């Protein structure tokens, strides 16, 4: 139906769209157009208004002013149903699937159709098979979603949108939890969708993906569009500068490591999902752990933090601490930035100031006459917010009210400002924008240079290569080998993550 339209009519056009939340002007008059059959990127820092904008397009919020045009027609989108009717589909960062149901059931869920169930199913299957051919995606339609990997779940979401005849597909941070291979598969599918005439809109923090995937990119800053350029005309550095408003160092600048005494030593440590792991972490070095998600790195980090039981040798400055709990390790000088901050690192219901003392709440400095001092707790939080530029800098603001990046900064501030001897850190920049990444990297290196030890688990190879002084690779719960960052090519790391030993990978 869209083929008959003039090619110059944009698939989606925003005209002076505005949205405020109370005093916060989240989107301040945004206009741009997206050509049909292109992949369009939107980048911006945390709080730049990208997600708000997409929530307006998808009908979660109503714009205060402005117009949203689909295929040249102004549409009044007040709910996701309206958006779907207008041919807009969205793949959220957090998938919205019913886990005990099958892929097929999830996809047809809510699409009204009458008639015998068997026929509906048969029709749906035929349509989905056609869609899978078109996109190159392949999913077992009768498998339960609960049994699917993260990457496959995302494909379910994409098919769900396409099944509802989405001509415009919006993806919010689509690669944040994907492995490099799944990311490639996703990008292939998106390119094929584009080539079939659909329009793709991708919100992301990862500039490298923007330059690799998109045809055109819109840069937002503080609720405004500050750039709208063809992707081939810009590079990552230029995009970062537009986003942040100043030149950004994409390269990590750090001197050589100066390792001191061993603070942590694992000897044949085993636990849930990992076995026989041995390595040392010394003062003044960052040890990175690479691996495809689900190969034991997360559990290893949890075990070292005292959150999962383990057996074997876990020595802290020479003393065995295998059976010690998190509280004890913390008291010894271990800090922990958990991989899943929402689950482990934050209490969403609490005001920020109460979240900012989590795990440090026993500190006598927070008490006056035996009682927690509101003033001290507030001052503590204000200090952390100032040092890590958490926005809004309001200790009374509920934790859930902060964007993902600012929540992460709050956790980092809490864990790093106590000058730990060892920092355990998982996925330090998940959901964090480029300006903040630069800042976080600098703080990690600063901690290292002051004699702190860092154990870093990350799924982003670039991050490991640029931050770590040594990279350990895990596969199938075992330590496959160690690579120096200067020797760590993507190919070599990829092979090792697949279970090929270091020697073989180097050959």
């Amino acid at each position, binding site marked *: 139906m869209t083929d008959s339209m003039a090619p110059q009519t944009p698939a989606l056009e925003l005209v002076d769209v505005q949205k405020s939340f109370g005093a916060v002007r989240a989107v301040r008059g945004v206009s741009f157009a997206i050509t049909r059959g292109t992949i369009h990127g939107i980048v911006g820092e945390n709080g730049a208004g990208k997600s708000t904008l997409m929530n307006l397009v998808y009908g*979660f919020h109503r714009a205060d002013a402005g117009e949203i045009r689909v295929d040249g027609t102004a549409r009044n989108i007040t709910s996701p149903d309206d958006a779907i009717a207008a041919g807009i589909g969205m793949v959220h*960062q957090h998938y919205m699937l019913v886990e005990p149901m099958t892929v097929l059931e999830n996809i047809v869920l809510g699409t009204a159709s009458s008639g015998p169930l068997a026929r509906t199913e048969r029709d749906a299957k035929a349509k989905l098979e056609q869609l899978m051919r078109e996109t190159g995606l392949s999913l077992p339609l009768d498998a339960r979603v609960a049994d699917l990997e993260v990457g496959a779940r995302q494909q379910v979401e994409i098919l769900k949108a396409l099944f509802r005849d989405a001509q415009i597909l919006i993806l919010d941070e689509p690669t944040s939890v994907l492995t490099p291979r799944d990311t490639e598969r996703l990008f292939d599918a998106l390119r094929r969708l584009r080539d079939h005439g659909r329009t793709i809109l991708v919100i992301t923090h990862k500039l490298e993906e923007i330059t690799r995937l998109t045809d055109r990119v819109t840069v937002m800053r503080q609720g405004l569009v500050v750039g709208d350029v063809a992707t081939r005309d810009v590079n990552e550095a230029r995009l970062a500068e537009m986003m942040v408003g100043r030149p950004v160092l994409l390269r990590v600048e750090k001197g050589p490591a100066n390792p001191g005494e061993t603070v942590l030593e694992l000897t044949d440590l085993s636990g849930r999902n990992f076995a026989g792991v041995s390595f040392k972490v010394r003062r003044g070095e960052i040890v990175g752990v690479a691996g495809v998600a689900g190969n034991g790195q997360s559990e290893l980090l949890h075990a070292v933090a005292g959150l999962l039981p383990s057996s074997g040798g876990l020595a802290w400055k020479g003393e065995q601490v295998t059976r010690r709990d998190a509280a004890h390790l913390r008291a010894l000088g271990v800090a922990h930035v958990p991989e899943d901050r929402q*689950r*482990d690192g934050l*209490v969403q219901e609490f005001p920020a100031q*109460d979240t900012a003392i*989590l795990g440090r709440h026993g500190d006598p400095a927070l008490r006056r006459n035996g009682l927690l001092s509101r003033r001290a707790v507030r001052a503590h939080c204000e200090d952390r917010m100032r040092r890590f530029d958490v926005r809004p800098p309001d200790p009374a603001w509920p934790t859930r009210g902060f964007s993902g990046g600012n929540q992460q900064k709050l956790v980092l501030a809490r864990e790093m400002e106590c000058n730990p001897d060892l920092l355990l850190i998982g996925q330090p920049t998940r959901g964090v924008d480029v300006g903040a990444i630069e800042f976080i990297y600098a703080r990690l290196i600063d901690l290292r240079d002051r004699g702190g030890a860092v154990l870093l688990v990350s799924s982003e190879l670039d991050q490991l290569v640029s931050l770590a002084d040594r990279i350990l690779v895990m596969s199938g719960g075992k330590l496959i080998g160690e690579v120096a960052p200067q020797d760590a090519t993507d190919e070599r790391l990829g092979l090792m993550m697949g279970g090929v030993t270091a020697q073989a990978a180097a050959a």
Partner: protein
Amino acid sequence: MTPIRSASIEVAVVASALVASFAVAGLVLAVIGADPIEAFRILVYGAFGYPEAIGYTLYYATSYMFAGLAVWVALKAGIFNIGGEGQAYLGGLGAALVCLFFDGLPPILLLPLAMMSAALFGAGWAAIPGWLQARRQTHVVVTTIMFNFIAGALMTYLLNNWLLAPGGGSPETRPFAPQATMPALHDILALVGINIAHSPANLSLLVALIAVACTWTFMFRTVWGYETRVVGANPHAARYAGIDPGAVIVRTMLISGALVGLVAVNEVMGVHKRLILDFPAGAGFVGIAVALMAGESAIGLVLASLLFAALAQGSLDLVIDMPMINREIVRLIQGVLILFCGALPSLFRKPVLRLLAPRREIAAPAGAS
């Protein structure tokens, strides 16, 4: 959101829930042919209209405060202690044992000792379900309910076989010695020359108010209270922070049981002046409604206790003055109140927020903006 802003929202939410529940209750009364306005007037008069009524209302409110605090504390740790009734019953045993066997002590020692004993017995009875929940994952709702029945059976047995007054015909202990009872408010005030109507309201009221203040201080100003709130809000974060959720659950159930055990101080030591069958008379369950209504506010808890106390006291007059209203209708009104004010707080929160706080959308889908 500023504290004043959020406080005004809470007040508006509770006020609209109250209005809605009175409207529904009024509708029911109108259907059975009673004049709702007149019923409401009698209810308020019966609860607050004359000095004696006020005394009775305060007496009920005292028990409800203890019971409400107990449920509230447990809720903060994410556990639903609905065994207040049984824990209060056991608290009565603790109080009675001290009052019966140590009544040679001077009141200044005896009364605190009896209170501690009541709290200890309540805590002990709550500790078992708490421990089962913490270490065996046996759901505390199930075990606390069952413990109510066990408490009932145990107390009936003890009263009939061991604690029965010598030569007494009914299953109750001998009356306590005068120095082993809580002084009535009218007696205390008479000492300083103030004469008020005689009522069962006694010194326990003061104890209850102190308990409210102490409980709030505990919950919001101490490290243990902080740990309790973390466990209730996010057990994963608690474990991450080095807090043992199991230990917190046991600790919280001990505190909860101790608080509701103090119901016995009001009922057994303050009013009946001996241990009788079924003295908690449902206070443990009213505590659930009180706690649900209280939200985050200590004043809210006191007011909720007063509301249910007024309903309990005022409805006595209502049943006498309006023949078509019976106990069942009063229960129904109580139920409607609990439904709107306790169980469905979110029903009115959204419209109120829309009205008062246009910034609410800050909490809407929070992606990586």
